[in-house]
């Protein structure tokens, strides 16, 4: 399950990305393991816009596909 399954308005806690290049790129921007991402908008088959630490950041479709939320028992994302 990747971030692509999130619905607008839902919040997820980011799991560590498995792609090292992506991991260092995002880590610098504050999107490290444990970051809280709230999905603000979603372009069909396109980028997703998240709010994280009070700023909005757009991530391309290919990137979202590789990012996963940490499993959270109290939050159903299915």
């Amino acid at each position, binding site marked *: 399950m*990747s971030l692509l399954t999130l619905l607008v308005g839902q919040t997820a806690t980011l799991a560590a990305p*498995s*792609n*090292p*290049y*992506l*991991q*260092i*790129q*995002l*880590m*610098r*921007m*504050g999107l*490290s393991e444990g970051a809280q991402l709230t999905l*603000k*908008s979603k*372009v*069909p*088959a*396109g*980028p997703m*816009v998240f709010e994280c*630490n*009070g*700023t*909005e*950041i*757009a*991530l*391309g*479709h*290919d*990137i979202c*596909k*590789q990012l996963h939320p940490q499993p959270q028992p109290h939050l159903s994302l299915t």
Partner: protein
Amino acid sequence: MPAPVLPPNVLPPVATAALTTPPPMDAATRSKAGLVTVVLAGNPNVGKSVVFNALTGLYANVSNFPGTTVDTPHGRCKHNDRIFIQDTPGVYGLSGLSDEETITEAAVLDADIVVNVVNATTLSRDLFFTQQLIDYGCTVLVVVNQMDRLANTQQQLDVERLETLLGVTVLPLVATHAHGVTPLITLLNQLPLEANAITQAGNPCPGMVPGQPARNAEANPAQRMHAYGLRRKHINAVVANTLTQTTPSTTTPTSQTLSQRLGTWCLNPLIGGVSLLGVLWLLYQVVGVWVAGDLVNFTEGTIMLGWVIPPIQWAVGQVFATDSWMYKLLAGEFGVLTMSIQYIYGVLFPLVLGFYVYLSVLEDSGYLPRIAVLSDTILSRIGLNGRAIIPMILGFGCVTMATVSTRVLTSQRERTIASTLLAVTIPCSAQLAVIMALMAAAGGFKAWGVYLVILSALFCAIGAALNLVLPGKSTPLVLDLPPMRLPQLTNVAQKTWVRTKAFIAEAAPLFVLGSAIVGVLHVFGALTVIQHWLSPLTEQWLLLPGETATAFVMGLVRRDFGAAGLLAMGDTLTAAQVMTALVTITLFVPCIASAAIFWKERGPGEATAILLGSWAIAFGMGAIVARILAWVPIL
């Protein structure tokens, strides 16, 4: 199985070509001359350029779009002549992931003092770079900008605590206010200050050895990951310790501000799509109809042809006989003196000015990054990403200008694809005005439909083909979205002026050179030979009357001359012939100025390939259109 963004541990190729004009002297020379080198560095869109402008009195491009500083502006501090100030492109860290990071890394390592500008509302993101600068052994002065916005988010920053934790001087500012930068100026005025507090080294991230060891360690992919992890954790803790919520978070406002709502609307595919069409339509009305039509009629027709050119011709006529080749070369139809001045100041200048006003307003509003997000879906299929929408929109104004702006794209590969698409498929505003008039002759609404379908299909096909052929992969979109805000008039005016001046300065010599070449060809009869030689091609290949060859050759000089030549032929052409000619002329060579810019930006090999490719595509596509329209008379 997720597709990899890039192969693990393989960084994208970093171009070796210099992107920037080098500072007038190197760091060693500056320090020998007793100058202190201050480098401004920080994440994209934090306000470095505002600080730079306030310190130097020069103008670096200030916009509400991340990644607009691609050159490194530099100058002396206007308040202290001993200080040399250099701006750098905004980066999130020094990892060599892009040309910008390489440029910035070289600049900060050469600096005596790095003024690190951070945004108060995005501290946990920005301080990662700050900590990396400290770990790399740079002497850092942290400037926390946009303190006013922080107050709006009901948060409070403990500046003293931040200073203690980082071990460097921290200066809170509101750089956009009239005297916002004064505290920084006061501090820098004490320079050079060997024994001053701000030259102290900061606290390295726990677990790291600062200076060269830290840099060496991070050159190794596995150790880099470890170091980044430590640094990220450390910074998250620093922020948690210094930033406090002033009102209980339970009272978070449920109603969004207008700015937030606008931002969300722009990202809706339907509203965003319609608004983009509206923006393009308005652009066409302002730049294509009003500036390219009415205003250029006045600047070119009245001012240039009426008042400026005749005295020049008269003066040249005093020295050379009017039928001599020297006269023709200097002041004839394609004269270096006459056509250059007429074109650069009569046409290009008002057009570029109008376009930059429009672009500056869009840019400052925060609209463009949202359009970049929307168009990413399509652009990522042709080897680009959403950021490339900016050069594409600019192309409808002036392809030459747009080609220069492809510098904002991350990789050389993206710049190649974007420049090629601009050269071949995007008609500029000078052409659009004439194309518009010809459309009526070609069948109006239906003709527009055919034209748009052909050009969009070609845009996608060429992009997809290049994406397939060129080695590498496009970089996926990672883009900060700044808040939507009302553009500031003074900034728009200042930015427009500086950019227009810079563009004219860059394009003018190239255009003079180009018109000199065409002038020589004309004077020695080569243009007529080319026209003669082209005639069978136009007649048998494109099924057009022989005289249209003249229009094509004129299109070499100026794209709108070509289309205007067709307009002059008017009724003698059938609708299908007009369409064939229009498609060919749109795809055909870009004008002299843009050809020269391709040469400069992309190098001789790639520029030649783009030009020859555009000829092949133009005549190939023209022939196809002519034959299809002969069989299927839809027009």
